[in-house]
Structures are given as structure tokens and as C-alpha cells.
């Protein structure tokens, strides 16, 4: 078949990405909602210790942006699942498209969103500190010293974690689109694994430890990027099994 203008893959992807960045604004507003919610949760502190004797009592409260980061990771997962749903996928048919370009633009969109999410999650820790200093009555504020390189590495690490979760979410979402019964089966499988592993938590600990216990940033980056590539690649393969406009 002949066309007047041959649509190049990268142009289609670029156009779709631009469209998605404008059209899926709900993704970013929900990110803000989740982070604001997480900051509010964090105001209560992530831990405390206390004690009392006849003449002296003490209370030490610990604050950090951990809750914001964890909830942002969950946001990344859920956002990726939502992108695979029918309502979002059909948007791509406004363009000259195929399943690969649609998926690739989705993946780029997720990566851009995750970068923004990681930056805002880390910046929100400053907002949390300013709020605690302004509204929490204490005798002393103690700050663990963090150098700029340390902070930057932490920010990139956060972004990589969010990308990892969104890659996982994208694959899970694709599976659920293949067969609707997986919407029920996957959570059941996940929950039963979690419950069954409570006595033998090695599997989950090993998975968490594979990323979480890695102290070398370069090795961690390699692990997350390779895992994300594998997960996104698997999503592309799974997506290929879908019917047109399924």
C-alpha cells in the first residue's frame, strides 16, 4: 500500500508523548494529591521513642520523607496500571499508531512522570522540615547532615525506585488486560504469597534486599534499569498478544 507521507516511528512516538503529557494531566494532579497526603501523614513523625523517671521525661520524634517516597512509588505503580486500561489505550487511536508506538510512548510518558515524581518527592522533604520547624513545639531540632552529592544520589535513587514500580505496574496492567480474570487472580496470588511467606519471609526479603541492600549506587542503578527494561519488554510482548482494540 502507498502513502503520501510515511509516518516514522519516532515521530509518532514523539507526537503521542506530547499528547499524553497534555492530556493525562490527571496523573500529575493525583501525584500532587498523593504527596500532599503523604506530607500530612509524615507530620506525625515516622517513629518516636520516649521515657520517664521521677525528675525527667523525654520524647524523641523522627521525621523524614520516607512516607512521601513510598506513597509516590505506589502512585507510580497504580498510574502505570491505569495507563494500560482501555480508556487510556483508545486515546492512541486518534493517531496513526500501532501497538509498539503506543506502548513506547506510554513508557516514555511513565519515565517522564517518574522523574517529576522523584524530584517532587525529594523536594517535599524540605517542605516537611519547614512545616515541622514552624508548627511542632520541641526543645531541639536535629538534622542529619546530608551533602549535595549524597542528596543528588538519593534523588536519582528515588526516581529509579519509582520507575521500577511503574514498570512492574505496567506489566501487571498488561496482564490484566489480556484476561479479565487476572484482575482477581493477580491480587489473590500476591496476597497469598505475602500471607504464606509470613512464616518464611525469605522470598520477599530477598527481592527487597536485592535492591534495598545495595550500597553501591552504580550497581543499584544497573539492577533497577535492567529490571525495568525487562519488565517493560515483557509488557510489550504481552501487549502483542492482545486483539486489535481489545
Amino acid at each position: 500500500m502507498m502513502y503520501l507521507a510515511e509516518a516514522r516511528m519516532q515521530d509518532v512516538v514523539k507526537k503521542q508523548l506530547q499528547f499524553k503529557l497534555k492530556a493525562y494531566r490527571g496523573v500529575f494532579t493525583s501525584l500532587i494529591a498523593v504527596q500532599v497526603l503523604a506530607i500530612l501523614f509524615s507530620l506525625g513523625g515516622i517513629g518516636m521513642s520516649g521515657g520517664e523517671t521521677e525528675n525527667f521525661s523525654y520524647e524523641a520524634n523522627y521525621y523524614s520523607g520516607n512516607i512521601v517516597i513510598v506513597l509516590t512509588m505506589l502512585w507510580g505503580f497504580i498510574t502505570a496500571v491505569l495507563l494500560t486500561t482501555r480508556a487510556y489505550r483508545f486515546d492512541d487511536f486518534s493517531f496513526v499508531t500501532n501497538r509498539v508506538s503506543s506502548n513506547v510512548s506510554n513508557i516514555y510518558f511513565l519515565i517522564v512522570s517518574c522523574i517529576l515524581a522523584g524530584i517532587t518527592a525529594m523536594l517535599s522533604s524540605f517542605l516537611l522540615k519547614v512545616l515541622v520547624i514552624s508548627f511542632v513545639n520541641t526543645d531541639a531540632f536535629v538534622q542529619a547532615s546530608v551533602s549535595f552529592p549524597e542528596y543528588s544520589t538519593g534523588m536519582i535513587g528515588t526516581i529509579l525506585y519509582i520507575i521500577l514500580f511503574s514498570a512492574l505496574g505496567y506489566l501487571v496492567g498488561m496482564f490484566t488486560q489480556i484476561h479479565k480474570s487476572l484482575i482477581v487472580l493477580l491480587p489473590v496470588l500476591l496476597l497469598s504469597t505475602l500471607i504464606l511467606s509470613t512464616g518464611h519471609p525469605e522470598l520477599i526479603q530477598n527481592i527487597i534486599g536485592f535492591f534495598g541492600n545495595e550500597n553501591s549506587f552504580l550497581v543499584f542503578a544497573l539492577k533497577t534499569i535492567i529490571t525495568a527494561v525487562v519488565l517493560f519488554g515483557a509488557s510489550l510482548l504481552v501487549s502483542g498478544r492482545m486483539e486489535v482494540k481489545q
Partner: protein
Amino acid sequence: MIIISLLLAFISVIAGIYIFNAFMGKYHIKKPLKWIFGGYAIILIGSVLIYFMLPEDTFTHAKTYSDEEIMQEEKNQEELYRLALNGKIDQVDDKYITQQWEFELKDDRLVLTAPEPQHSAVTVLAERAGTDKKIKIDYYGMKRIVGNVDVSSKVKAPELEFGENTIHIRKREKVNVKVANFSKEFTVKQFSDGKKSESRMSAMMDQDFLYMQIPVGVEVTGGVIFIDE
């Protein structure tokens, strides 16, 4: 517990996203979104600027301790009390003496009074020393470490009221200390060199004591533990 927390977090994020999207959809809110993004970005960048413009004394510069240092300090303080009780006060580090008094008796009697129960005031240890009617009193204040931070300066020495032959230890107000500790985010801690040294321990030996040197021959009335008798 971790599983339940994760599930709750998961459910709250899904509910948050769903309610938020439903709200935005129901009221067809589109234009203000630009303002929401902009506003959030300004708040975040503003908070970074405010944070770096905070006065230097906002954060405490008190000495901070690692787990190992806290445990060592607790051992030192237990040892200190044991040495004092066994009459080896000369082996105790002078750094624990935070206040000293000297008092001259009119005759050979000393009455020590303190609020009941006396432990709400302070323990009084004493030894016999000299014959010149002068009483020397040292206050040994223990370290209080809360969430890594030395807050010992918050605990003042007891107030003593001196009469002709009397010393009254005034009841101390209870000291309440609150410390807010900003920890590193786990993604920062994971790649930090000193990740193992961050501690969450607190230590507070409540064994402050007054150590009195009372002249030989002075008759003492009141709650004093003589270490050499």
C-alpha cells in the same frame, strides 16, 4: 505488620487517586490545573529556599552520639555511681561535676532537709573530711541523651538553701525534653557511607547525686548516705 501497613498504604493511594479524579471529573475542573502544578512547584521550591535561609541556631549543635557511644556512656555512668558508693570518688572524672558549693557551719550540727520522698530531690552521698567546719558539696550530673542528642544542659543542678546549720534541698521541677530528629530518607541513607552510624537510641541515667565532704565530729541529721561508715 509491614504487610498490613503496605496494604493500607496501597488502598489509601488508590482511594486518593480515585476520589481525586472523580472530584476533578465531576466538577469539570481543568483550567485551574495549571495553577495547581505551578502552586505546588512554587511551594516546594519556596520551602527549599526557606530551609536554607533558616537562622543557623534553628538546629541544635549539641554533641550527637552513636549507639556505641551511648552504650559506653551508660556503662561509664553506672561505674561512676558504683565508684562513688565505694568511696572511690577520686577515680571519678571531674567532667561530671556541674556545680559546687561551700558552706560553713556555726556549730557541730548539720540538718539536711529535702522534700518527701527524697529521691524526687537528689541522692546525697557524704564522706568525712577535715575538721574546719567547712562543708564542700559537689553535684554530679549524669548525661541525658535523647535521640542521639546530649540534652544534659536542660537538667539543672538542685537548688540548695543554706541556714545557720541547715541545708535544704529544694524540690526540682520535672524536666520534659522533646527532640525532633530529621532522619535521612532511606534512598539517601542507602548510598551514604555512614548509614550504619545513624542511631535512634536514648539514654538517661537518673542517678545524679550530691557528694558532701563533712568535717569529722559534725552530727548529721537527714537523708545522707555515708560511704565510709
